[in-house]
């Protein structure tokens, strides 16, 4: 063999550490997204509220507290099994508000439409937005529309912002998790991401994989009524359950310990993940939540959740621990532990 490596030069070069242009991975919700926020956004726009890095801002006005949040939706295809971009945009912001325990009240909506979109398609998107808003009990009270040249958008992009009212006794935040807290997951993971990917990759199964898009605010109200000791809550959207748990572990400086066997994944979703070489822990959800609850209240919260159709498959998947603060560790079906890391960017399908 030529070029035998030389043991004496036992070091690594630093060819490339940072991208100096925006990459798709910066928008994938993983480590590069976190970097972008930390290194580029916060130094310029930072303030005490923004720096908490919650999915919503909590604002006090006298004795009233409001939750305020915004989210933009760019999904391809615009219509997918189980929903379309319209209801996704309503549910997404409703959920970001609900994760603070807030009752969502009003939404704004901004459309960026590519020329050529059919009015019929737009109408269908609007109808599903209306239905989603009615179900969640929110009103769309202000809006804006811009049209861009053909090729400068992908049919339609939607931004929604929302305001919700936080009840007096509720104090839910990513920073409140305590060791011993039980982790409750409201149902199966990876449905939304795999629904989208199956359509994009032209995969078909005996039963169609549908997005789980749903507004979780009623489920959250049920949970809050049962227990004032829900410490943290988040909807594991882009980046999946693994990313959300990592964010929460870091925000509260606790370790997170979960059990592989406890995490529900639909059989068809599992199969699609196997085929594409993708880990369901990193796949997006649009109608699920994960909650950290004081151990003494966990069973009561779980019971209440299971009575709601959106929480009927809720399970305890693990707990917060003192060890390995900031990291997520999963025990697999053989009883062996491994680390569950933040993804870098998009998951890349393997060669073989």
């Amino acid at each position: 063999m030529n070029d035998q490596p030389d043991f004496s030069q036992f070091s690594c070069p630093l060819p490339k550490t940072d991208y100096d242009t925006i990459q798709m991975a910066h928008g994938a919700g993983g480590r590069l997204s976190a970097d972008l926020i930390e290194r580029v956004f916060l130094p310029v726009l930072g303030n005490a509220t923004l720096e908490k890095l919650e999915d919503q801002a909590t604002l006090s006005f006298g004795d009233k507290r409001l939750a305020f949040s915004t989210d933009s939706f760019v999904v391809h295809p615009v219509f997918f099994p189980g929903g379309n971009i319209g209801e996704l945009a309503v549910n997404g912001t409703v959920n970001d508000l609900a994760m603070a325990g807030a009752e969502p009240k009003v939404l704004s909506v901004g459309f960026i439409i590519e020329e050529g979109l059919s009015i019929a398609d737009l109408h269908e998107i609007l109808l599903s937005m209306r239905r989603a808003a009615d179900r969640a009990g929110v009103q769309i009270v202000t809006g804006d529309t811009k049209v861009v040249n053909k090729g400068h958008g992908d049919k339609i992009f939607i931004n929604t912002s929302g305001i919700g009212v936080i009840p007096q006794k509720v104090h839910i935040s990513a920073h409140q998790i305590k060791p011993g807290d039980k982790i409750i997951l409201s149902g199966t993971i990876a449905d939304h991401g795999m629904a989208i990917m199956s359509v994009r990759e032209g995969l078909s199964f005996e039963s169609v994989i549908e997005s789980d898009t749903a507004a979780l605010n009623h489920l959250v109200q049920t949970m809050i009524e049962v227990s004032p000791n829900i410490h943290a809550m988040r909807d594991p959207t882009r980046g999946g359950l693994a990313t959300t748990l990592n964010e929460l572990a870091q925000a509260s400086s606790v370790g997170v310990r979960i059990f592989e066997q406890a995490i529900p994944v639909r059989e068809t979703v599992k199969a699609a993940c196997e085929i594409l070489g993708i880990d369901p822990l990193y796949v997006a959800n649009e109608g699920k939540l994960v909650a950290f609850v004081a151990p003494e209240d966990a069973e009561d919260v779980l019971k209440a959740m299971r009575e709601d159709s959106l929480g009927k498959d809720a399970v305890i998947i693990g707990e917060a621990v003192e060890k390995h603060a900031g990291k997520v560790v999963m025990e697999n079906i053989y009883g062996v532990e491994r680390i569950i890391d933040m993804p870098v960017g998009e998951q890349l399908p393997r060669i073989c």
Partner: protein
Amino acid sequence: MKYIDEYRNPELVRELLEQIRRTVSRPWVIMEICGGQTHSILKNGIDQMLPKEIELVHGPGCPVCVTPLELIDQAIAIAKKENVIFTSFGDMLRVPGSHSDLFQARSEGADVRMVYSPLEALNLARQHPDKEVVFFAVGFETTAPGNAMAVFQAHKEGLKNFSELVSHVLVPPAMEALLQSPQNRVNAYLAAGHVCAVMGWWEYEPIAEKYKVPIVPTGFEPVDILKGILAAVRQLEKGEHFVENQYGRAVTRDGNKAAQEIVNRVFEVIDRKWRGIGTIPKSGLKLRKEFRDYDAALKFSVGDLQTEEPAICISGLILQGLKKPNECPAFGKQCTPRTPLGATMVSSEGACAAYYRYHRFKTE
């Protein structure tokens, strides 16, 4: 999932571990060839469940890891040309060349697309007759038949706007090169199940004989891998050395004849440089003369582009089984999946990436 869960069954896993424990009496080093096996071993914690006598070392069977730097640079150079649609399997896109990667080329305006099969790339060529469609044909014997078929089809259809940037490598010459190395520590091989599904296992018989090393074609699920290890340990303990097929549900001695034929029809064997290892004689494939019109390196005149590895990242030693990823001083520090210094950290099959994802809290 039917046909998968059976091979992940915890009861069977425990039973096989017990059999391995009863069989092993002294230390052995076993190399799994394929990066897919490395990931399965680390993801499932198989290395932690095995008795301490058995050391698993990770082989060079990760196509992303061993593709030479200049090929990545050539790929980027082609992708940046006007009128080109550059297609690739997903995990090649994040491998750094000398200065950038294919993702970055895409963000700068190159039309880089991820595909699952070279035949998808061929379809793109049919749909876009005004564009040049290039496929990055990397991998071992596993991906070679598909890549050969795409060229063969293009030739048959007279499709002029399709070509492949070929960097194919072959497993048996790499195994021999490792066994010839004075630093070799490997006592037995788990051969890559999917490579053997294509090529069969007859190729390994002379290697097992010449180097007196057990070779076990092995699958990818925990039960497969443990069965492979058990077979290898049994041979080692008895002082035997032959090819023993563990992966009977996919592998036969002769392999897939039709696949082999198309590979031989389109490709010929050449010496090939492996990233981090060096040139290994007769260890690669290139397009035969008859198909040279489909060679993207010639078509876009990038064949002369030569690049030296900027410095030594120890991925070479890791790919030869001489070092473990966590023995690299840069592991998890300067070198992470976000800022990969070597290809072993980039690919989801790369040993360093596997250690980083599954093992980091143990090594810190």
